[in-house]
């Protein structure tokens, strides 16, 4: 634990200005990812997983504003960098892949060129070398017949192939950190496993840290070292995957686990989590944003959230943990 983490997000708050008011999407979010480690950000839709990633990458929608926090990466605070300096880092030091690989690729540009664009931009190859380097990348992501596939357009490839292309673009410059935002959503189950294995292998090969954003706890447990549970813009619990599964401490994590199909639970036994996310536009948001749905609510829950350290690697933000 003495090593400097690959990425340390501290105290990150993000607001979105909308017509119906200011939405406090992220509230003092903090977590870290060690070098070579794979961390899952889990939570239901709208919990702020993707926004966290976008804020770190500096590609938030113009309506979104970072109001506090730091994202320490390679000795610099990404949130304090100018757009110009951050663009230098993006795609070279930290990369991101997205859900729906088909729409995430430029539809009218050959996939080889799209890989080459990133290589040329970050000095990974010269214009003349780039086509050969693109073929190399396709080989690395195990695309059969790479010489022919570099000439293909995204619409000529399957969803799984497109996601491999996305991975090739993201890893072209061998980044230190990869953020994978629901990379397997929209792919069929067998392809999901293949893509996850591929990301895992490539990360392992290069010692790259990976943040894996998902709402699928089972997938997170299978591929990740540590899990960070988010709810309504708060980090509610962070723990090693195994421990979180065995002893969830936050009531929300426990409910989330109960809602996850596994080997021992049948579909009929799955429990849904009562209630929904609170309206984040409310000016009087409770200190604990889960308290409205929580069965273990006590009087203390109106006080600012605590950070209870269960052990060195297990932290929970709850006044009345399990």
């Amino acid at each position, binding site marked *: 634990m003495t090593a400097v983490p690959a990425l340390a997000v501290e105290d990150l708050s993000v607001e979105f200005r909308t017509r119906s008011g200011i939405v406090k999407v992220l509230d003092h979010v903090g977590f870290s990812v060690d070098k070579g480690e794979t961390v899952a950000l889990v939570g239901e839709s709208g919990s702020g997983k993707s926004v966290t990633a976008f804020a770190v990458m500096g590609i938030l929608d113009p309506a979104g504003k970072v109001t506090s926090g730091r994202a320490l990466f390679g000795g610099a605070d990404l949130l304090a960098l100018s757009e110009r300096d951050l*663009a230098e880092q993006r795609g*070279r030091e930290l990369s991101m892949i997205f859900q729906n690989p088909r*729409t995430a690729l430029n539809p*009218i540009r050959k996939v080889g060129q799209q890989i080459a664009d*990133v290589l040329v931009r970050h000095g990974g190859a010269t214009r003349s070398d780039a086509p050969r380097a693109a073929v190399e990348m396709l080989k690395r992501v195990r695309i059969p017949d790479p010489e022919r596939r570099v000439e293909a*357009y995204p619409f000529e490839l399957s969803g799984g192939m497109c996601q491999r292309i996305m991975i090739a673009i993201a890893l072209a410059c061998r980044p230190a950190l990869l953020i994978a935002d629901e990379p397997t959503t929209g792919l069929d189950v067998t392809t999901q496993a293949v893509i996850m294995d591929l990301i895992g292998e490539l990360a392992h090969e290069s010692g790259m840290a990976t943040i894996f954003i998902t709402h699928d706890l089972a997938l997170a447990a299978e591929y990740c070292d540590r899990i960070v549970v988010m709810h309504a813009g708060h980090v509610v619990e962070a723990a090693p995957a195994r421990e979180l599964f065995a002893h969830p401490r936050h009531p929300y994590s426990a409910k989330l686990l109960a809602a996850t199909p596994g080997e021992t639970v049948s579909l009929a036994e799955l429990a849904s989590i009562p209630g929904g996310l609170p309206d984040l536009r409310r000016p009087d948001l409770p200190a604990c944003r889960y308290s409205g749905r929580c069965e273990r609510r006590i009087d203390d829950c109106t006080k600012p959230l605590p950070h209870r350290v269960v052990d060195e690697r297990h932290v929970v933000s709850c006044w009345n943990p399990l």
Partner: protein
Amino acid sequence: MLKLLLSRLATAVPSIVGVVVVTFMLTRLLPGDPAAYFAGLAASPQAIAEIRTKLGLDKSLPEQFVGYIVDLAHGNLGNSLSTGQPVVTEIATRLPASAELTLFALILAVGIAIPLGVLAAVKQGTWIDHLCRIVTTAGVSLPVFFTGLLFAYVFYYLLQWAPAPSGRLDVFLSPPTHITGFYLIDSALTGNMEVFWGALRQLALPAISMAIFSLAPLARMTRGSMLSVLGSDFIRTARASGLAPGTVVFTYAFRNAVLPVITVLGMVFSFLLGANVLVETVFAWPGIGLYAVNALITSDYAPVQGFVLTMAVLYVALNLAIDLLYGLVDPRVRLDS
């Protein structure tokens, strides 16, 4: 690509046939009797009948139609009744005047509208975006003949900056050697700068009035299309890959956004062909629009038919060009064909 070209050409054939039939019917069914018109006011019924026989107007409609088709197959569009010249020759000499005016106006419009639309989308909500909105609103609300008249009044009559709205060249200058029929190009090619500037001065007002009109839909579509593309997933990918802003805006966003702009460009070009008729009348421009108006007023069939047919062929050629352009920009279109 060749397959696409051939299939598009094949679909053009029925439209041309339709136009041939419609032009024939339309001119025959229009009110006004050309025989009576040409015989003059004091003509006797016999004289009118004589002229009618001479023009072949006494025959039945099907007979006239067959004759028309046969002539058409020989590249003969008939003779103008008022000038006695073959319509083909007259259209051929007048078409470059209209083409030069329309193309110049279009290039002007595209040259302003596309950068304006792109900038307005990239810098949404800034002064350039507001400027774009003002220009597009003004552009659509000013009809071409009105801007034309206004310009002629202000810049010729009041300020005397522009030459008299009296055609393609000042009467004291002689046209350049005929190469393309475009005065600007021909005079530049022959190095005749005096004629070049003279032609440009004459061209400026009618071309600008047409450009203002066509600028609005182009700028609006460019802005809207750019905005929607800039919000799409692959732009986020491009930004997440750290690509330079120029690459993101032009190579990634603009090339995708240009597709609907091309469609609008085709429509604008069609509008301009129609607007020609009005602008040429205002500026006494010796193009085919003015020719058609004069022919229509005198119930002169042949030139009207010739004009409509020429326009139809131009429209078909234009749509073909747009389809091919689409295929060039978007690989998915190539596959569909």
